[in-house]
């Protein structure tokens, strides 16, 4: 009964609040800056939001299951750099380069997941360690100066459009639909929510707890790798450190979108709103004539405040 699941989603207050917040923020910003609500600028905002949202897609699955993936920055970065190196500015190699890199991202997630489930390493330590290993490895591999530019096809994918809609947004929409279907209408999604709430209950119910956990990290590795490819197309090249902003942003998007940072509640539809809020916010602050330093301070404070507010009902429920 699909209507049931939709009705319940429609009653999800944190998610509705997040969309309300995104709209309000957008309206306020547009009032200050006339060009902000133009079709062209909305397209740019959507493209910018898609990178956070794609990384946050995998992050949503991981956090829902009660984990966290801190290895997304350098998974993204590694995929971006390897893509430019392997393709060397040519479109043709992308046929195998893109699938290979997405698979490689999945492999990173697989190692994360196995370390956490089979070896019992805590998710924070495991994925943080992975992040450091990847960043070090990439520095050695590239000698610190990757140079190749993004192939034209990837640039088209990231910035081109069909009619009024960017390709990028269509790709995001497709993946978002897939994530929504999986979370809402499949047993895997149901098991994920159970897992994030109470691992033991899930295990005693006969759910393959370890397998579900590993799959979430694999998804996260794949979406981070794919986001790296698209981001390279948007920026025009790959550089060391390009993934760094996406660690906090992806976690914040999930939390602002109404998910519990401890797992078990939330939805990717909320994460989308979270990604939109972060993107509009980044566009609002320069309009207020704030320099880069104070911009970063405000950006950080607002994220922390929103995350604190968003998780407040969850914490109240826990202490009850």
């Amino acid at each position: 009964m699909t209507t049931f699941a939709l009705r319940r989603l429609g009653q999800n207050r944190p998610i509705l609040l997040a969309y309300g917040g995104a709209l309000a923020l957008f309206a306020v910003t547009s009032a200050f800056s006339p060009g902000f609500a133009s079709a062209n600028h909305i397209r740019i905002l959507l493209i910018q939001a898609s990178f956070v949202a794609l990384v946050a897609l995998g992050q949503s699955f991981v956090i829902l299951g009660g984990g966290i993936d801190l290895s997304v920055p350098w998974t993204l970065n590694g995929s971006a750099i390897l893509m430019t190196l392997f393709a060397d500015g040519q479109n043709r190699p992308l046929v195998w380069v893109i699938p290979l890199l997405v698979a490689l991202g999945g492999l990173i997630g697989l190692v994360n997941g196995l370390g956490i489930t089979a070896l019992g390493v805590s998710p924070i330590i495991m994925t943080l360690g992975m992040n450091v290993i990847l960043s070090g490895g990439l520095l050695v591999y590239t000698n610190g100066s990757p140079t190749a530019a993004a192939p034209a096809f990837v640039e088209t994918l990231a910035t081109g459009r069909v009619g009024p809609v960017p390709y990028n947004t269509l790709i995001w929409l497709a993946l978002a639909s897939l994530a929504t279907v999986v979370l809402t209408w499949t047993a895997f999604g149901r098991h994920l929510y159970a897992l994030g709430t109470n691992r033991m209950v899930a295990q005693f119910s006969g759910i393959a707890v370890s397998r579900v956990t590993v799959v979430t990290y694999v998804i996260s590795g794949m979406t981070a790798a794919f986001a790296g490819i698209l981001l390279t197309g948007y920026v025009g090249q790959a550089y060391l450190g390009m993934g760094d902003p996406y660690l906090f942003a992806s976690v914040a998007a999930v939390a602002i979108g109404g998910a519990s940072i401890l797992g078990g509640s939330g939805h990717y539809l909320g994460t989308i709103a979270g990604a939109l809020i972060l993107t509009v916010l980044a566009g609002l602050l320069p309009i207020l004539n704030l320099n880069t330093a104070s911009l970063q301070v405000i950006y950080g404070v607002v994220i922390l405040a929103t995350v604190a507010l968003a998780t407040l009902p969850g914490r109240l429920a826990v202490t009850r």
Partner: protein
Amino acid sequence: MTDSPILALRGVSKSFGQVHALSQVDFHADAGEVMALVGDNGAGKSTLIKSIAGIHPIDEGEILFEGRPVSIGGPKDAGRLGIEVVYQDLALCDNLDVVQNMYLGRELRDRLWRLDEATMEQRTRETLRGLSVTTIRTPRQLVAGLSGGQRQSVAVARAVMWNSRVVILDEPTAALGVAQTRQVLDLVRRLAEQGLAVVLISHNLHDIFEVADRITVLRLGRSVGEYAVAETTQQEIVQAITAGIPAAARSNGEAPV
């Protein structure tokens, strides 16, 4: 009374490193009867049910199901045989509703691999009605909002929904009020009347003497003995639990308070 028990354990042992949690334990559960499993903390009750449930597969001995030796290596094996366990605090997921909990880990799917919510909701209603659980107004409410008695009812209903033959209840009345304990005990009795073998773990001898047919006493990982409720006293059971005095040592029927 049946010829051979549905579930029988013979000489079952289980160790965790140097700790012998169970040694040479015999146990059985018959259709239509409530078998109580009692013992002090650390007597091996939890280990025994977890062995039966496949969470801690046994080291030695054998498990017979309907007279045939079976090997239970995981929860799925136990479920396939029709053995269901209702764990004390680990039966239900708070953030899911009643229907979602009833089918957790065994969701029904349609041809497109989507969850079949309508059928699951329908069968949940039928199961609850079949067990005369009337206190749950809608199966779509979250389990977090249920009372202790309602939670136990859902947990028990979930266990019996799968054509189960043996239902193991771990402390089902712990932390329940008088009226709610009543509800759950009635439900336990009803399960036995429907022909299931019920294993009841409890610290409350009063409850046990009210609903159980037989009592198996465990002490320090060994079975002290088996008692028919109609032929024993609470005093005798307490002695068996604390001192390991078997039934044969009974001196006279007049038990002091």
